[in-house]
Every structure is written in structure tokens, then in C-alpha cells.
């Protein structure tokens, strides 16, 4: 190849070499999850009445509809089994595609690796072409293998193909979003943040669209994740909807190439402006806050928005449980408040898991600062190792606490504003704060891994995903009780939180402290990475 595309093949091979473990793991992971879900679904819902009952109950539960979407054919085994995969898992696939695309575009540009390669015979468009080639083929392979896995798991072929192609096309659409974002910002972190922000917003848009009566409203049609739901795999297979994400790619990709042609290597949309000649960072804690506050702010905004929206759904909860029998049961269990409590408890515990994800990513700054060589400059001064490690650890711990405080307040205020029950604010705030120790355990686990096995800091994410999967599927998989009990989230008291929950919360806090101390001990005795 010549001209602006010269060297594309070399870059593709280089990317495949760098990601030779990552990509097969992702692709096979998705296919495996698809297979086990399809196989488990057939066991769980052996006949049509059981499926209709489950689907009707799910469609009638506002929190479920907001989180996962609707089932468009209550009799369809596929639509029911894959309810959590049409929107939620698609969003996770989108996040992975964003990370993959940014890694090979802005990431390489920011680190200067592209400059090194650019000295050779490398066309201007080659990096973007090769990055998109990798992301697109990963999306397509994930989709096709998952389609095969689903039909292998016993689901009908055409629906499986529609579902798999939906994943493929949506993955491609968000890769294109990331390719565009990579042209706008100077840092890879900012480009990733921007793209994940788009995923979060479009996920929220489809939630609003799904909750509308009769759904889906126009909000669903404005969101690529909403499109994937409207493919309605196993429930009519609307093949034409697959053209929407592809059309989005056809629009975004040329814009990305156009912007790339307009700018210098390494530059963003704006020129770099001069900053202060004097610094007022008081120490390593100030530095950690400075390095992390933007991301922290974005998380806060997302949590508050999500909290208010979820909270304001409380008014609809009673309506959604349309069957009078279910409502009677709920009342018998503890009055109408039990209904809202169950709903809020489900939402708050999900936010607790997401806050743990924040805690891990904030604590993992330790490792990225070390490998970037920044830690060496700091430890060359009178700063001790413990003081430095404490800075990011403190940001991570207090960030988790702040996020949960905001979750509780915003859900409570959202709920109280619609049902006129001011006590909901304190109830949901206490419940949200009760999630903090469990999230701290994961945050501290990240510090422990940093201290003892610094090359494996990514493994904490695997741990978190494993705990989520255990919580979701543990019962399905017949996982032993002791294994399920390993999850800190399992020990967190739900609404209403009372004195009975205190021992569990204390135990979780102690576990977090022990993991943190373990991490410090490892960090004190190991070599700094060269």
C-alpha cells in the first residue's frame, strides 16, 4: 500500500502481537458467556407458561426495564434468557471496543510510539485504519462466535445470528465513536473518558425510551444501544435495524479521518495553552487529587444523574406491578414502603458495585504512575513510599465514599420528590453509605495486588467481574455457599439498614484495612519498577 495508507499491514500485525492474549480472551469470554446463558435458560424455563410468567414479571418491574430493557415476545426463550445481554452486556462490549480503539490510536500517539514508527514508511491514515480494522474485526468475530455459541446452546439459528450481528454492529459503532474522540483530545485518558461518557449517556437515553408507555419512545431510537434492543433478536428479528449502527460508522469514520488530516501528530482539537509558572501543589496528596479530580468529577455527575433518574422512578413502581396479587403480597410483606425499599435496594446495590469499579481504577493509578516513571521522581525526594502510596489510596477510598453519599442523596431526593416522603432521603442515604465497606474491600485488594504482584494489577478487574458473575449466576451455576460468601457485596445489608447490619459492615471495613496493610507491606519491600 502507498500514500496515506502505507504501513497499515505492519501496524495491524504489531497490534495483533501486542494484544495476542487480550483479544482471544475477550472474544472467547463473550462467546462462553453467551453459550452458558443459552444453555442455562433452557433449564430455567422449560415450558412456555414459565417463560411467559417470568417475562411478564420482568416487563412489569420498572428497575429491570430501566436497567436491561423490555422483552418483546414473552413466549421467546431467547429474548428472555438474553435480557441482560441486549443492552447491559452490549454496553460492556462497547467499553472494551473503546479501550481497544483508543489504545491503538491516541494512546500510541500520546506515548510517542507512533512518532517512532512514523519515522519509517508510514502513511498518515495508517494508524487509524489499522486501529479500526482491529476493533471492527474484533467486534465481528465476537458477534459471529457468540451467534454460533448461542445456537449451540440450543437457541434458534436466525435469532442467534440477529443477536450476534447486533453485538458486532454495536461494537463497530462505538469503535467509530472512539476513533472520533481520539482525534479531539490530547490525552488517551480523556479520549477514553469522553467515549465512555457517550456510552453512559446513550445507555441512559435507552432507559428513558424503554420506560415510556408504550415503549420504546424516540429516546431509544437516538441510542445505538437502543437500536441493538430494537433488533429484537428471537422476538421478530428486525434485520433492517442493523443498518443503523453501520450507517453511524459510515458517518463518524470519515469525520475522524477528516479531523486527522487537519491536525498535527500529537495535537488535539485545541492548541495547548500555557499554564502557571508557579505551582501550588502542596504535596503528593495534592498531586494525586490534581491527577484524578477530573475523572472523579465525571463519575460524580454520572452518579447524581443516574441517582435522580432512578429515584424518580419510585413513583411508578407500584404501577409496574400491575397484577393485584403481587401488590397484595407486597403489602402483606410490609406495606407499600416495602415495595419502594425493594426497588431502591436493588438500584443502590448496583451503584455500590460500580463505586467499587471506581475505587479499583483510582487505586490502579499507583501502578500507572510507577510504570510511567513519575514515582521515581517523587521517591527521589524526601517522600516516603508509604506517604506516596497513601495519596492515591486516600483519593480512591474517599472517592468511593463520596460517590455513595451522592448516590444515596440523589436517589433519595429523586424519590422523595415524586412520592412526597422526605424520610426516603435519609433511608436511601444510609443504605448507600452501607455499600462503602464492600467497595473499599475491592479498592484495598487493588492496593494489595500493587504491593505484591504489581504486574497483575489488571487482575483486580477480573476479580470484580468474577464477583459480579458469581452474584448474578452463582445460584444458576450451583456454586457452593462458601464461594458465594467470598463476595463482599453479599454481606452488605440492604434496605432498610438497621443495627443488625453493623457487625457485617465492621467486618468488611476490617477486611479492607487488612488488605490495605498487606498492600503497604508488599510495597515497602519490593523494588521500584525500572
Amino acid at each position: 500500500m502507498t500514500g496515506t495508507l502505507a504501513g497499515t499491514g505492519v501496524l495491524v500485525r504489531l497490534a495483533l502481537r501486542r494484544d495476542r492474549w487480550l483479544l482471544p480472551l475477550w472474544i472467547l469470554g463473550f462467546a462462553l458467556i453467551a453459550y452458558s446463558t443459552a444453555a442455562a435458560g433452557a433449564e430455567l424455563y422449560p415450558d412456555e407458561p414459565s417463560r411467559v410468567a417470568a417475562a411478564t414479571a420482568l416487563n412489569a418491574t420498572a428497575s429491570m426495564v430501566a436497567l436491561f430493557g423490555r422483552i418483546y415476545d414473552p413466549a421467546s426463550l431467547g429474548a428472555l434468557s438474553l435480557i441482560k445481554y441486549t443492552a447491559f452486556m452490549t454496553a460492556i462490549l462497547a467499553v472494551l471496543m473503546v479501550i481497544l480503539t483508543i489504545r491503538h490510536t491516541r494512546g500510541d500517539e500520546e506515548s510517542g510510539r507512533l512518532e517512532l514508527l512514523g519515522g519509517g514508511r508510514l502513511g498518515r491514515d495508517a494508524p487509524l485504519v489499522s486501529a479500526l480494522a482491529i476493533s471492527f474485526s474484533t467486534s465481528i468475530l465476537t458477534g459471529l462466535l457468540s451467534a454460533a455459541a448461542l445456537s449451540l446452546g440450543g437457541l434458534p439459528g436466525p435469532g442467534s445470528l440477529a443477536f450476534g450481528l447486533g453485538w458486532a454492529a454495536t461494537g463497530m459503532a462505538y469503535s467509530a465513536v472512539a476513533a472520533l474522540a481520539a482525534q479531539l483530545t490530547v490525552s488517551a485518558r480523556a479520549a477514553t473518558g469522553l467515549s465512555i461518557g457517550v456510552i453512559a449517556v446513550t445507555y441512559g437515553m435507552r432507559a428513558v425510551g424503554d420506560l415510556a408507555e408504550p415503549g420504546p419512545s424516540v429516546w431509544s431510537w437516538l441510542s445505538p444501544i437502543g437500536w441493538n434492543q430494537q433488533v429484537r433478536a428471537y422476538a421478530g428479528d428486525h434485520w433492517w435495524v442493523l443498518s443503523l449502527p453501520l450507517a453511524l460508522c459510515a458517518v463518524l469514520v470519515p469525520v475522524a479521518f477528516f479531523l486527522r488530516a487537519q491536525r498535527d501528530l500529537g495535537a488535539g482539537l485545541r492548541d495547548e495553552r500555557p499554564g502557571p509558572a508557579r505551582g501550588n501543589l502542596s504535596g503528593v496528596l495534592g498531586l494525586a487529587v490534581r491527577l484524578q479530580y477530573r475523572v472523579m468529577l465525571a463519575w460524580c455527575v454520572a452518579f447524581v444523574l443516574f441517582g435522580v433518574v432512578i429515584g424518580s422512578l419510585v413513583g411508578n413502581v407500584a404501577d409496574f406491578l400491575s397484577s393485584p396479587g403481587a401488590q397484595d403480597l407486597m403489602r402483606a410483606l410490609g406495606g407499600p414502603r416495602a415495595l419502594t425499599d425493594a426497588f431502591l435496594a436493588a438500584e443502590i446495590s448496583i451503584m455500590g458495585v460500580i463505586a467499587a469499579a471506581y475505587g479499583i481504577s483510582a487505586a490502579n493509578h499507583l501502578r500507572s504512575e510507577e510504570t510511567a516513571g513519575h514515582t521515581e521522581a517523587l521517591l527521589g525526594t524526601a517522600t516516603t513510599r508509604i506517604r506516596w502510596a497513601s495519596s492515591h489510596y486516600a483519593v480512591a477510598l474517599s472517592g468511593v465514599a463520596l460517590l455513595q453519599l451522592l448516590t444515596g442523596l440523589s436517589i433519595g431526593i429523586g424519590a422523595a420528590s415524586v412520592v412526597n416522603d422526605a424520610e426516603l432521603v435519609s433511608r436511601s442515604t444510609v443504605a448507600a453509605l452501607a455499600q462503602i465497606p464492600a467497595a473499599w474491600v475491592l479498592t484495598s485488594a487493588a492496593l494489595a495486588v500493587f504491593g505484591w504482584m504489581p504486574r497483575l494489577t489488571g487482575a483486580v478487574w477480573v476479580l470484580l467481574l468474577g464477583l459480579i458473575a458469581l452474584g448474578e449466576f452463582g445460584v444458576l451455576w450451583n456454586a457452593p455457599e462458601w464461594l458465594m460468601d467470598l463476595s463482599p457485596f453479599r454481606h452488605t445489608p440492604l434496605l432498610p439498614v438497621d443495627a443488625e447490619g453493623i457487625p457485617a459492615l465492621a467486618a468488611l471495613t476490617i477486611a479492607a484495612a487488612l488488605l490495605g496493610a498487606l498492600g503497604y507491606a508488599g510495597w515497602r519491600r519490593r523494588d521500584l519498577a525500572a
Partner: protein
Amino acid sequence: MSNVVEMTGVVKRFGTVTALDGLDFQVAAGEVHGFLGPNGAGKSTTLRLLLGMLRATSGSARVLGLDPWHDVATLHRRLAYVPGDVALWPNLTGGEVIDLLGRLQGGQDRARRDRLLQTFDLDPTKKSRTYSKGNRQKVALVAALATDAELFLLDEPTSGLDPLMEDAFRGCVRELRDQGRTILLSSHILSEAEALSDRVSIIRAGRVVESGPLAQLRHLTRTSVTADVARMPPGLDLLPGVHDVVVTNHRVSAQVDPAGLAPFLQALTAAGLHALTSQPPTLEDLFLRHYGPAGSLEAARR
């Protein structure tokens, strides 16, 4: 004078790789000590050990009388460090980084900081990501040199600096020495160490193979001389201290020991010298001659 740095039999292994192999190394108080060695000889590993960033597998190391692994906070208040590979936070300005490092060090001299910025012609308002390699180096140098440290550990401090800035840096080092501070600077360029150092140590494959005042090491070095002459002087290769004489047409080239330079040049002048180039001895030559071919560890250990 007491030793500021004292390392005895230090071994450092990374897995199966032995980076330092029984290193003995001393730096006396108040001297500028050149720490010389080819790439990968263990210079940075030694400095990072002295800073408590790495832990020695065996052997003992003392810096300013303290244990570099255990007494980090006390020790680091008294020393300043410039890493070999300066990595800065991309979205902080150079000025912010200098002030941050200064504060963490326990205070820097404001006036000296500003004077150093001028000396090195560094714009402190630029974001670090826009700095070139040389400018990143300057940020670390200004941050370190503006402190009141007793000991300066500088890992290849001039890499990336242009000759003008190298000159400025040499001026700063001399100033510090005149104030009685100790400076340990690593380098793989012999002439750089020569220009500044009172004493040098040469490290090779994780061991110090030569240590002493530069003059004492002179015998190890040879100058490479090439001359254009009107006629061939006879018996050049018989002169003492002249080696590897090659004659082509009217051009003579040879490797000359310091003691052999004067008679050699006299002979050339007598032969109608009209062009002369000489190259200072390089570290590489020195290693090739005295410690066997590069890469041969056994040769170095003999």
C-alpha cells in the same frame, strides 16, 4: 575526608540477571565523582540502590552514613536526584513540577530556582507534554539544583542538552563544588566526566574496574591523531607510546599515549605538518583495549 557514599560487595539480581556483581564503590565528601560505564553496565541500578528504590540482594551500602533502604525520609532530605529518564506529568507545567518536587524535598531556594530557569533558558509555563527531551531534563535539573542538598545524584544529567546548555550545567556543578557539596554524576561519555570530575570510577558488567583521580587513569587512554604531512617522517612507529600507525599517501594516523604525544607531534612538525585532527580517547576505546571486547563479561572480570 570521610566517604559520602560507601558500597561494599553489593550484589543486585533481577531474577536470573545479575545487574551488580560485587560492587565496591566510594565517593568522598566534597568531590565531583564521575561514574563511567557503557550502557547496561549498572550505573542506574547503582544510583537507584543508593536512593532506596531497589534493595540490594547482598552487600552493604551507606549514603551520608545512613542506610539508603531504611532511612529514606531522613536521607532524601539531604540529597537531590535527577533520574536518567525524566518522565513528567503531561498536564502539569514545568513550573508546577519544579515547585512540587522542591516542596517534597523540603524547600528550595526561590531566587536560585528563578536564576536556574534563566540559565537554562526554560519556559516554566509550558505543559510538560510539549517539552522536548532536553527541556524535560532541564526541569529535573532545575528542581534538583535549586535545593540545598549535600549530595547530588545525577544520572546522565546532560543527555538531551545542547552544547550551550551542557556548558551552563558544568558551570552549575562547579559552583556547587565550590560550596563544598558532593556530586556523583554518571555518564557514558569520558570527555564529559573528564571536564568536571575530581575522581572517576569505571563500572563494567556490574563491577567497578578502575577508580581514582583522572590523571591516574590517563595511562589508560590514547588520543587518536590524524595528520596530513608534506613528506613521510621515518621511524614513526618506533617512537615510544605511538601505536597502530597507518600511512596512506601523505596522511598519517596513529593512537598515541599521553606521554608519547610530544615527541610524535615534533616528528610530524619536522615532516611539514599542514593539517591535524585529534580525537579525545573514548570510553569505548578504553574498554576495548583494557577490558576485552564489548559484551564479553568474562573479559571484564578477568
